[in-house]
């Protein structure tokens, strides 16, 4: 799976590159508008991450061009601009998702996975990680053919773990994934603790192995082989 990262900040592009490479993606980086413009005309990508403000041009123009060329690539905008206008403009042009900087790499990863799943399987398939079988469209999870009775938030958190298998997920990233930008309202970290304990209990009760590991008070890590 090929991913093009169009981002002018080199260290951020490098971090995204490294994180996604470990997921098994083949990544390329474009730091300018012109460079990106050439690449999207020559190669085909499965997923393109676009920053809106680029040296030499606007990322939205690139999306326009991709759509004009009937590109099949999934497009995620990564922008420092957190305005509804840009969001709507981007989605109207045909981008699939919008992520505001600063974001968590694990969140970006989960979004790419969800997008790819939607694109490739048209969303009607199921996938297996470890002993967990997931039907993403129905939001159902099975352990050894036994369905887990999960609440909405529990499913969200589990799904986030599955997308970031073998990665340390910080509490902040989990909270932001589950509650959005406004996770700091009430003590969300206590919520996460409660939800994760429930998840562990439900998986164990269904005969599954507890694969959620705690990491030094920073966060959690899902370990499915």
């Amino acid at each position, binding site marked *: 799976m090929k991913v093009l990262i169009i981002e002018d*900040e080199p*260290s*951020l592009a490098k*971090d*995204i590159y*490294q*994180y996604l490479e*470990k997921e098994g993606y083949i990544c390329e980086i474009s730091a300018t508008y012109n460079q990106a413009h050439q690449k999207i005309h020559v190669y085909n990508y499965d997923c393109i991450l676009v920053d809106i403000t680029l040296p030499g041009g606007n990322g939205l123009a690139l999306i326009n061009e991709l759509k004009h060329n009937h590109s099949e690539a999934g497009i995620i905008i990564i922008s*420092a*601009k*957190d*305005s*509804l206008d840009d969001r709507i403009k981007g989605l109207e042009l045909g981008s699939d998702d919008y992520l505001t*900087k*600063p*974001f*968590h*790499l*694990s969140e970006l990863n989960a979004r790419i996975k969800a997008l790819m799943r939607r694109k490739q399987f048209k969303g009607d398939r199921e996938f297996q990680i470890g002993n967990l079988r997931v039907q993403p469209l129905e939001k159902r999870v099975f352990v050894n053919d036994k369905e887990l009775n999960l609440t909405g*938030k529990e499913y969200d958190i589990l799904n986030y773990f599955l997308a970031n298998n073998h*990665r*340390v997920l*910080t509490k*902040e*990233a989990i909270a932001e994934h589950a509650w959005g*930008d*406004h996770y*700091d*309202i*009430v*003590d969300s970290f*206590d*919520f996460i603790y409660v939800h994760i304990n429930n998840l562990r209990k439900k998986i164990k009760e269904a005969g599954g192995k507890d694969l959620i590991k705690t*990491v*030094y*008070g*920073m*966060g959690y890590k899902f370990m499915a082989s």
Partner: protein
Amino acid sequence: MKLLAKTQVYYLSLLLVLLIFWSGIFLYAISLVLEDSIDETLYSELQVSIEQFQDNDAESFLNYAKKSSLLDYNYISSIHTKKLFYSDTLLYNSVEQEDIPYRQVHAEIMASGKPVRITLRKSLIEYDDLFSAIIFTELIFIMLLITGMYILNRGLLVKIWQPFFTTLERASEYRLSQKGSLHLPNADIQEFDQLNEVLMGMMAKIEHDYHSLKQFTENASHEIQTPLSVIITRIEMLLQDEQFDENQWESIKDVYQAANRLSRINKALLLLAKIENRHFEEKQTVNMSKMLTELLNEFDEQIRQKKISITAKIMPSNSVSGNEELTEVLLRNLLVNAIRHNTGKGEIAIELLPGTLNITNSGKEPEQDLSMYFNRFYKADINSNSLGLGLAIVKEICVAQSFEYDYSYQNHQHIFTLKFQPLQ
């Protein structure tokens, strides 16, 4: 004291003092002239009397003098002087039953070989009446003059100072954050024109500085986002190694949490800058009832977790003309506040009526003035996780959308009231 009143007081009191001074001098001059003429009359009458005295025999004259109140005599031991003495005196009048002023003259003469002092008097009562008449007319004159001057002055002052009052009114109505610069009309009076020019120049400069500062804040917040992204993602990359000892974990955790907090502060400041720079001018019809219900669903879990009992009376299809994004931030921040600063097992009451939203929640008694809550970075509870920007954002949104708000604390309840123009 008002400018016009102050000017009038100075002007009219000077006028009054001058007039009183003038009338004093006037009366004094008249009395001098009158006294002079009375003395002359007395003198000539005295000469006639003395002639009569010397012509006739002393006996009959003295008899005559006895009958007259205007003529008096008494014997003296010797003649001390040949000078005449003028003086004023009061004599009791049995008819009028009061003392009446007289002018009198004394002369010492020899009558039938004996020294006699004779006194000739003249009543001043008619002159008193004259003075009363003069004073009366003077008073009327002074009153008329002052009233006239007052009216004239008032008209003149109001006319002359009119441009100044216009300037004052425009300047006090002027708001820096609003659209449109300060414009002051031509006054046709050099000093006022100068004042207007100086004011307009000053305001233009302040406006320019204000807007470039706001723009700077927005740009700075924007520019900070990217390096912050680098910090946060770099730490997340580091975390994946898991090759740290406990101290290192602790340091990484602190840096990571601080970076996340900085990111949240920055986002809030960026939002504030954008509201102030009018990025949200577009207005839509916002269905407050729907928005509020959705937000309550969103916060349902947190509300239940904190064991808060909630009562919501939301009248359906309550709409307002406003910016959808801002209105959502506004409602969200209000709900967040009601949840975050609630007591354990507390309560929240929400009431949405056409044009009014009341959010009441139990909470700690405020230690400081409630208006402080709307200041940026003010935190009632130092230890709380909040940024201290929520209500500052609420305030800016209310200003931007012309909503009115009121915040009070009664019966252990924090009460926030929002007033808006409802759409039919």
